[in-house]
């Protein structure tokens, strides 16, 4: 048996209509009961429950100060020359991942932490487009002091 005939024969329509009605009635009743619970609690307590508000204590991060120290460690100074050459070869502004990739290929030791030092010393600074440039002003300032 197929089609509407099968639905009628097995009382499908009746089951569906009653079934979905019971689901609705159950959830409507539950919804109604739920909506009364807090009112009943209030009545029981004879007062409104005071809800604890979440404190908004915005504790500031212990932010690592951005280092713009002119005193650059010796090893970083040495590395900075090599990195400057690489940057000149790439061209400015340059993508930081490319500098890391190239420095690794050139066999420079610990390129990641060296780049980090150069960033902290602000010898490498971000431009406004997600790329980076060599801070010539700082370099000149350093060499003049």
């Amino acid at each position, binding site marked *: 048996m197929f089609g509407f005939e099968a639905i009628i024969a097995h009382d499908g329509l009746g089951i569906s209509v009653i*079934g979905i009605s019971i689901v609705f009635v159950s959830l409507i009743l539950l919804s109604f009961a739920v909506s009364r619970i807090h009112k009943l609690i209030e009545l029981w307590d004879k007062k409104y429950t005071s809800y604890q508000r979440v404190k908004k204590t915005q504790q500031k991060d212990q932010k690592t100060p951005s280092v713009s120290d002119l005193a650059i460690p010796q090893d970083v100074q040495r590395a900075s020359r090599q990195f400057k050459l690489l940057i000149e070869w790439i061209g400015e502004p340059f993508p930081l991942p490319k500098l890391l990739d190239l420095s690794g290929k050139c066999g420079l030791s610990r390129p990641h932490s060296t780049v980090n030092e150069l960033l902290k010393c602000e010898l490498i600074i971000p431009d406004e487009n997600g790329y980076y440039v060599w801070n010539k002003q700082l370099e000149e300032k350093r060499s003049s002091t």
Partner: protein
Amino acid sequence: MENLLIEFLSNTGFALADYRNIIMILVGITIIYLGVAKQYEPLLLVPIGFGMLIGNIPVIKDFGLGIYESGSFLNYVYYGVTHDIYPPLIFLGIGALTDFSTMLARPVLMLLGAAAQIGIFTTFLGALAIGFPPNEAASIGIIGGADGPTAIFLTAMLAPRLIGPIAVAAYSYMALVPVIQPPIMRLLTTRKERLIRMEEPREVSKKEKIIFPIVGFLLCCFLAPAALPLLGMLFFGNLLKECVVVERLAKTARTSLIDIVTILLGVTVGASTQADVFLTRQSIGIFALGAFSFAIATAAGVIFAKIMNLFLRKKINPLIGAAGVSAVPNSARVVQMVGQKEDPTNFLLMHAMAPNISGVIGSAIAAAILWSFMSL
């Protein structure tokens, strides 16, 4: 010696396998791939996928290895599926894990969980129309509830031989929520509706949270007693969570217990999909109807939310209606995702949890009703 070797070789999987085993093994691998690489419900799909591999290694009949052979290891573990032990235990874990407060804060959203169950009954009619007997049609319809344990629970009662395909269909569609639901949601809503911001829910007191599982259980189970195993465990688990004094029990229910049962259920459901049971024309019908059921459930939730907006003073975002299909919390996350595509500062996740959770209750009641009618 030669005979022994020939006999051994003729009993290996290579000799016993036919093309259907290979197809099912490939299906199993695909399901594992979806779980691992695409991360669609990995906690479910990985055990089910591997279970499919286990169940489809060809073995000698009556050797006590197959899942359908009494006395085999798999058969013992499968007992928990066929005798409805695992689904209520999973509901216990869900109860101990789930926060009902968004639903308690705005109970009217529970109606969306009811509306989504329309998919179940529509598909029941569809399955009857294409020739499935009523008990099987009811089991197929429940796929639209998007709740694996409920689907297994009802199928084990009404059509045990369909547990494999129905469970796999239910879990697959649950996993594919992010793929199936968004187009339906977008189709049925305007941009203006998708941009509706929901009002902040009120805070719900601890007392309310403790009273709710008791009231909810009594009310639902007096109305639909057949839902007792599922809803009893769901509300009990929630009471464990909310009453705080039995935190150890709540923690066990929401972590170790639900994980253990998920492993056992997943592997055995997967293993039950043996080629001769699974690769039938009927299974194709089950999958097609399951998808239909799921789509109708999603659409019904969204449309009902729009209808509610005709009467509500403070409008609700109709996208949250789609979360009425259960699949907690995936469909709520999909609602958040679709809503944020229109407005990245609109947060619907918390609001969608209300119909999402009431959908779990609704689908359990729907299953209970179908079971009652089929047993009459």
